[in-house]
């Protein structure tokens, strides 16, 4: 395929890739490099690409902003919790939508997508009094529920797509072989929809890990997540320590970058919504 492109086309493509790369990787590179610079070096112009790295910023983060690491712990709990919850629900939901078709299910499918299109805050704010009444304010559970709910509709449809690609004859073969519905689901269908599960889980995890707005509204202390501390870092009364902020941001980025890199195969498959090879 490559050889069929003409030279100008190839140049154009190279240029396009370069721009995209600068666009997406540039800011990350800037943040990561800055986190290893002294405060005075960060905003000098022209930026220094070669410098003597220092880990002072990271040390300062551990000594002066201990709360950041607790918050990262909270982020991890919330992100994992939401991932597991959304995973289970959308897996079972996708199965039901794919295998139990009726007028009711097709109608609710449309509704689920419709809800997803509303601005999340519109759906969420009315929850405030409910949350209060239930005493769920500032708890991990609440964020887990919110984040999972936010993704369940889309992930259910992604999973439905994956299930739809598995011929129903396979279910029937398993039933004839003596499988119960549960055995069919967990010994056969679960293995064949792994890619979808992986992709969906990454969406939820990354979203929950990065989310700021809901966390700000619904947590104050115990369940505070890392992005909130980062924003506090920025607004510190004694002036922003950019180096420390960038160190925090770098740490915050690590799991996301790792996850996306490790699972990019699944991610792309998930975005293409499902291809199970026979």
């Amino acid at each position: 395929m490559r050889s069929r492109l003409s030279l100008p086309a190839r140049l154009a493509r190279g240029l396009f890739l370069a721009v995209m790369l600068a666009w997406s990787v540039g800011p990350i590179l800037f943040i990561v490099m800055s986190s290893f610079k002294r405060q005075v070096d960060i905003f000098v112009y022209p930026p220094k690409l070669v410098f003597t790295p220092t880990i002072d910023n990271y040390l300062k983060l551990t000594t002066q902003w201990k709360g950041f690491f607790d918050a990262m712990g909270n982020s991890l709990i919330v992100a994992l919790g939401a991932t597991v919850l959304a995973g289970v629900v959308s897996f079972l939901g996708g199965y039901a939508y794919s295998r139990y078709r009726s007028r009711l299910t097709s109608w609710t499918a449309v509704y689920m997508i419709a809800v997803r299109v509303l601005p999340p805050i519109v759906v969420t704010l009315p929850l405030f009094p409910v949350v209060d009444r239930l005493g769920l304010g500032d708890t991990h559970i609440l964020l887990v529920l919110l984040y999972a709910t936010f993704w369940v509709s889309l992930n259910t449809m992604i999973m439905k797509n994956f299930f739809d690609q598995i011929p129903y004859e396979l279910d029937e073969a398993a039933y004839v072989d003596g499988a119960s519905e549960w055995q069919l689901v967990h010994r056969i269908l679960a293995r064949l929809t792994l890619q979808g599960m992986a992709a969906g889980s990454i969406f939820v995890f990354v979203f929950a890990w990065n989310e700021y707005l809901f966390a700000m509204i619904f947590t104050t202390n115990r369940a505070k997540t890392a992005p909130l501390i980062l924003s506090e870092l920025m607004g510190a009364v004694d002036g922003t320590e950019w180096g420390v902020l960038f160190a925090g941001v770098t740490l915050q980025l690590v799991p996301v970058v790792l996850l996306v890199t490790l699972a990019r195969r699944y991610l792309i498959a998930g975005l293409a919504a499902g291809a199970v090879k026979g």
Partner: protein
Amino acid sequence: MTDVRLSGVRKRFGRVEVIPSLDLEIEDGEFVVLVGPSGCGKSTLLRMIAGLEEIDAGELSIAGRRVNDLSPKERNIAMVFQSYALYPHMTVRDNMAFSLRLAKAEKAVVDEQIGRASGILGLAPLLDRLPRQLSGGQRQRVAMGRAIVRDPAVFLFDEPLSNLDAKLRVQMRAEIRGLHDRLKATTIYVTHDQVEAMTMADKIVVMREGRIEQVGRPMDLYARPANLFVATFLGSPEMNLLPARPAGSGFDLGADGRVAAPGAAAAAAQDLTLGVRPHQIALRPPEGADVTAAIVLVERTGAETVLTCELPSARRICVVAPGMADGRAGDRVGLAFDPAGLHCFDTKTGQALAA
């Protein structure tokens, strides 16, 4: 004793009655083929026997036990699907072992059964492969292996060969029949290919629109079709049909001439349809023949020659002559109908008349 009995079995999908009311008895160890045109309800019937489709009314019993309300796994059946439906993420071995493991069979039993099945089917070298690493014929065999490891009372096949090329189909046909002769388990086999039905079955069930048109041994159906549908459905090329009237000791074909049939005087003077298979028409010189026709098309397969001819009424008739028969398009020929091969049908009802 694993006989399968259906009495008054019905099935409807929404408002469409797919199987109006069907009775069928299948004896222990019999190889029964359900055959019929697409959409006639063969698969639906098979799936009802398997327990994959609910039975709306009537009774289904396997080995004397009513099984209407039992799940597939409680019916002691195994099924081979058209798409094979192998579990894509499992090796051949695991595909075959799946049902045994679900039944919590001992490992030694599982190994023994897989050894036996893979021996019968020649799967031993493929046991550790995944389905996607197999050819179509090999997948077919694995699907059969998955069925036989369980020693089921009844084997169900739904068009298992339709995804294979012609040559492999002939080979697997013989293999499945050979397998049956060896295991002697009751088998119900669905196909819309009449050659499969003729070559494999102990008993053929010809279906149309959810009804059974005729049941019987292949050669009985071929020699004595109960009606026009069965007559034209079985046999290739199709039986020729000609409108006729009884006349003396024979039949008057109107413009096309007459056919002598010494024994056939009994039929009442009515409109009937005369059927004759292409193999039971012989070519003669046109001079003095009762029926003459013009050759339109000649097809030679080597072993036989298939001639399409046009009668004076412009009706087409197919003749199969053994070996390399002479004749070219445009030639005139005389046709001699074998009196023993004549079939009479009531034109209105399509039912066979005693000839």
